[in-house]
């Protein structure tokens, strides 16, 4: 028997059950009031229904269900087992037997039998039951006796654990149970359904909102969920003492039309609908909120304070043996870092916002200069901190004017030089590490070196006949008081020179570089840090003082051996993988009196292609650096771009790497040249 097919067992069982039912009915016709017999018949019908449904005898289960319902009412004393009723069920039995044996059956015959059954049940004392409504009839219909008295409307919002279906719980019977409590309005909550590709078919993604009007207490609602209550969210609120007429649907409608829709929809319908809505949903997620920039700044300040507090916590935890404290400190560090990144991304706006302003400028320039100018923009989707973007506008306007005014030739000159009549200005942005590089490039005549040299000598910026490199010569353009425009036009040269552009960019902790290969026009590249507020930094120590080097500029860290150290004083050169890299001693720059550590370290930093080693005493580690601006008195100190507060409350200055490297280059160019 143990290997037997359950379906075969069921066939035999069904015959036995039908015989039991038949016998019980026949006995009942003699002793109509026998409760034991009624219970036995009911139980047999119940088992026949349950097992039939289990093994795919759906028609049998469905048909038997109605007989069971009728007998349930007999059992509860609502209906008397009249001879007519017994006869009707006996007639129905032949139909059940046929269904159980799998013989072909006419559905109309079954329907006719049920109609007859319903008629005799009604005649036997029961109100006509809506047969298909099934189990619901077991519960007292709301509003039967004392409508309004004790009726409360509850809003029940519930979501089940995702894996609830796997565990054998089915939402549909729960909804049925709720409906048994009283009149229900049921709405499926489909918000949590993921897009089709992310949908796990065995998970329950639906939630339900049910408004049930019942005379039962709150606990009756909770009892519906008794076996799943631990793994679900359930919110039951009372929303009205009496059924709200506005909420209540017309008397006949709720049972018939409203509830079945969401329950059947619990299966595939909403999922399909929401899969189709996937895009629309994504679109909604993109919807933006306009927030005053000042609030973002305030939020950023708070994040900054949080990061400072966090670094204190880190320091305390690091000195503690308490593992719990350490793990919390670590978690907070991660959270603060993520919060910082999220905050940054909120502040980021695409440079397209900036670039689009220049179309009008180009149009005006073209009209005023009589030159044909095409503006080409690239990388508009590159993002930068909003504050940075605002502050970039003026320098870029200046650079574009310069290109249009000095760089590009007149159409005649261009044609004569074999170039298209229309000059081009290319405005491009791209991200490179923690920096954004914005280039303004033109295909004009390029920088006239002789004119630059003459002008520099004329303004006393350069000793006549001094030998300087091409790069240094080009740098002259950024010196204060330099202007190459032979005539001051309406556009450029309004007393605002390139030195102002340079200062603005450096104020943003950025750098700029002019290149102008002969005959290929000129290009100014602006390198701007992504943000002004918080950076990842490398904390180093020189003597007793600590400094922060922006991590984005750091290439590598090396050890300065005592031999290398002894080999030279002042600034020196190091060979790293066959490349000469100059290094400078921060301790001599900062006049540190304390004796150096025995093994000093070199932090190799780079900006704009130049690599310089900075000699420090100790590398302390990475540090989330909240940049605080220096006071006005110190803003002229070029070597530092700001200060930050450390975990122990101390202050560390942030090194301006761009400034240091260029300082190194200008003060003693020979090692740099050797390096490049």
């Amino acid at each position, binding site marked *: 028997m143990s290997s037997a097919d359950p379906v075969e067992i069921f066939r035999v069982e069904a015959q036995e059950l039908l015989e039991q039912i038949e016998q019980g009915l026949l006995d009942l016709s003699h002793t109509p009031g026998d409760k034991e017999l009624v219970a036995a018949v009911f139980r047999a019908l119940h088992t026949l229904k349950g097992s039939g449904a289990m093994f795919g005898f759906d028609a049998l289960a469905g048909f038997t269900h109605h007989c069971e319902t009728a007998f349930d009412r007999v059992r509860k004393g609502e209906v008397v087992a009249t001879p007519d009723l017994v006869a009707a069920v006996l007639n129905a039995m032949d139909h059940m037997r046929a269904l159980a044996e799998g013989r072909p059956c006419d559905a109309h015959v079954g329907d006719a039998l049920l109609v007859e059954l319903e008629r005799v049940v009604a005649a036997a004392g029961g109100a006509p039951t809506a047969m298909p409504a099934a189990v619901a009839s077991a519960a007292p219909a709301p509003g039967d006796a004392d409508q309004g008295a004790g009726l409360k409307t509850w809003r029940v919002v519930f979501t089940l654990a995702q894996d609830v279906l796997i565990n054998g719980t089915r939402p549909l019977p729960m909804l049925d149970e709720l409906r048994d409590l009283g009149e229900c309005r049921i709405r499926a909550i489909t918000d949590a359904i993921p897009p089709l590709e992310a949908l796990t078919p065995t998970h329950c993604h639906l939630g339900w909102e049910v408004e049930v009007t019942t005379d039962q207490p709150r606990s009756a609602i909770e009892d519906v969920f008794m*076996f799943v209550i631990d793994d679900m969210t359930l919110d039951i609120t009372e929303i009205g003492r009496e059924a709200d007429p506005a909420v209540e649907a017309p008397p006949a409608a709720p049972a018939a039309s409203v509830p079945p829709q969401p329950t059947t929809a619990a299966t595939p319908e909403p999922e399909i609908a929401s899969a189709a809505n996937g895009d629309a949903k994504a679109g909604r997620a993109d919807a933006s909120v306009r927030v005053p920039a000042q609030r973002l700044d305030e939020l950023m300040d708070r994040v900054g304070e949080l990061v400072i507090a966090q670094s204190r916590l880190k320091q305390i935890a690091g000195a503690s043996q308490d593992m719990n404290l350490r793990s919390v400190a670590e978690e907070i560090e991660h959270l603060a870092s993520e919060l910082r990144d999220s905050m940054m991304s909120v502040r980021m706006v695409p440079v397209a916002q900036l670039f689009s302003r220049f179309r009008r400028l180009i149009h005006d320039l073209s009209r005023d200069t009589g030159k044909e100018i095409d503006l080409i923009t690239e990388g508009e989707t590159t993002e930068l901190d909003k504050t940075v973007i605002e502050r970039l506008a003026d320098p870029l306007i200046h650079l574009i004017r310069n290109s249009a005014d000095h760089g590009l030739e007149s159409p005649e000159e261009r044609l004569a030089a074999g170039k298209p009549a229309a000059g081009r200005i290319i405005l491009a942005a791209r991200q490179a590490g923690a920096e954004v590089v914005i280039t303004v490039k033109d295909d004009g005549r390029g920088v006239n070196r002789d004119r630059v040299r003459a002008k520099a000598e004329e303004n006393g910026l350069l000793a006549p006949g001094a030998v300087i490199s091409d790069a240094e010569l080009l740098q002259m353009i950024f010196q204060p008081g330099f202007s190459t425009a032979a005539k001051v036009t309406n556009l450029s040269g309004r007393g605002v020179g390139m030195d102002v552009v340079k200062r603005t960019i450096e104020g943003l902790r950025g750098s700029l570089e002019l290149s102008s290969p002969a005959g290929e026009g000129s290009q100014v590249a602006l390198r701007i840090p992504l943000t002004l507020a918080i950076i990842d930094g490398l904390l180093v120590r020189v003597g007793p003082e600590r400094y922060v080097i922006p991590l984005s500029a750091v290439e590598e860290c090396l050890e300065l051996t005592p031999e290398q150290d002894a080999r030279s004083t002042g600034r020196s050169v190091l060979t790293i993988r066959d490349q000469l890299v100059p290094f400078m001693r921060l301790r001599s720059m900062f006049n540190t009196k304390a004796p150096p550590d025995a093994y000093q370290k070199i932090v190799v930093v780079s900006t704009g292609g130049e690599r310089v080693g900075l000699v420090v005493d100790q590398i302390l580690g990475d540090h989330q650096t909240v940049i605080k601006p220096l006071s006005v008195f110190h803003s002229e100190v070029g070597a530092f771009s700001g200060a930050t507060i450390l975990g122990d409350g101390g202050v560390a200055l942030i090194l301006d790497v761009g400034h240091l490297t260029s300082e190194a280059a200008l003060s003693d160019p020979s090692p740099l040249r050797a390096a490049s």
Partner: protein
Amino acid sequence: MPSILTVDDSASIRQTIKIALSSEGYSVAEAVDGADGVKKADAGAYDLIVTDLNMPIMDGLTMIRELRKKPAHAGTPILFLTTESDADMKAQAKAAGATGWLTKPFDPDQLVKVVNKVLAR
């Protein structure tokens, strides 16, 4: 390997439960009604009982009340597997000490998962 007692008046249901749980390595014993269930439970040590609700002679509710009275079965997980979904019945079952409630018709795989889950606790 854990042993399980299935109590159901329907032989086909018992067989289905037996096949499903045996294939998972459980040893499965059968009882045909509540009274038989109490007798079998007393005779052997079962790790879990799966029972029907509506049964002749003794129904599932009476059976669980009987079993819970005895210290030997006070902590045995008892799952109801029934077509019944009446809230009142469930409340009674829970009050009587039922561990879980599954509704028929059931997916044998789901039963196995629930049993695994209950026994893993």
